């Protein structure tokens, strides 16, 4: 199984994007995915992610969110990331404002893989030292390197 590092391309890592709304940030992330991978209809991918977001929040705490969706529009699982500074105070009451967003989208028939990657990502993000490093990354390349190193 290709892990997170191989599916998260440096081109799909946004460092402090100017967008300040979750919907817009997700849209931007999908836009970057579509630049490096063929996505027939990026708008529908965004729609699928927002539809899942509407079900309940993917804010996992510690300032991290992992929006995701499985859709028939894709034939492989892709990951994008965004480091947000200053953090977005859009989370549920009592939760830390969001500074790290990992977006994961994949095909409907690979739910098992999707679930494994999602669980792994959530586990890695429980490490406060790792989060601190990501939040201090100078650029996308360093961010990507940190993810690959952490994943091992």
């Amino acid at each position: 199984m290709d892990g997170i590092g191989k599916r998260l391309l440096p081109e799909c890592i946004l460092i402090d994007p100017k967008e300040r709304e979750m919907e817009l940030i997700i849209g931007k992330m999908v836009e970057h995915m579509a630049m490096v991978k063929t996505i027939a209809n990026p708008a529908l991918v965004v729609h699928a992610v927002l539809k899942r977001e509407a079900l309940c929040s993917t804010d996992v705490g510690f300032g991290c969110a992992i929006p995701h969706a499985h859709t028939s529009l894709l034939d492989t699982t892709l990951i994008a990331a965004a480091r947000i500074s200053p953090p977005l105070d859009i989370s549920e009451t009592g939760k830390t404002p969001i500074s790290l967003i990992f977006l994961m989208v994949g095909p409907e028939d690979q739910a098992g893989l999707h679930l494994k990657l999602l669980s792994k990502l959530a586990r890695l993000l429980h490490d406060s030292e790792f989060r601190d490093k990501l939040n201090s990354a100078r650029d996308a390349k360093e961010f990507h390197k940190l993810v690959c190193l952490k994943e091992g």
Partner: protein
Amino acid sequence: MKLLVFVLNNEEYLEEVLEAYVEAGVTGATILDSEGMGRFLTYEVPLFAGFKEFMKGNKPYNKTIFSVVRDDSVIKRVKSLIDGIVGDLNTPGTGIMFSLPVDWASGLVPENEEV
């Protein structure tokens, strides 16, 4: 001596399953209310809520039956009877049965006193 563990997914079969246990020679068991990992993750952990559709058809809760069996042949008889009640355990969502060797136990009711 073995510990026989059976996770019964469809609680409706519990009565029949326990009758089968007794018929096969299991004279004592402990029944626990239990819950599958998939159900817990999709319904209790918001991050996995999007996977609820993959849980369709699965029972939300199940029963786990523990029993210490002194005679290994009893386990074969239990398995045969259980297959006839709940169906082939290899069918997803039916249940899981396994046994473990027990090298020591204390507190077991003597067989001639068990019900």
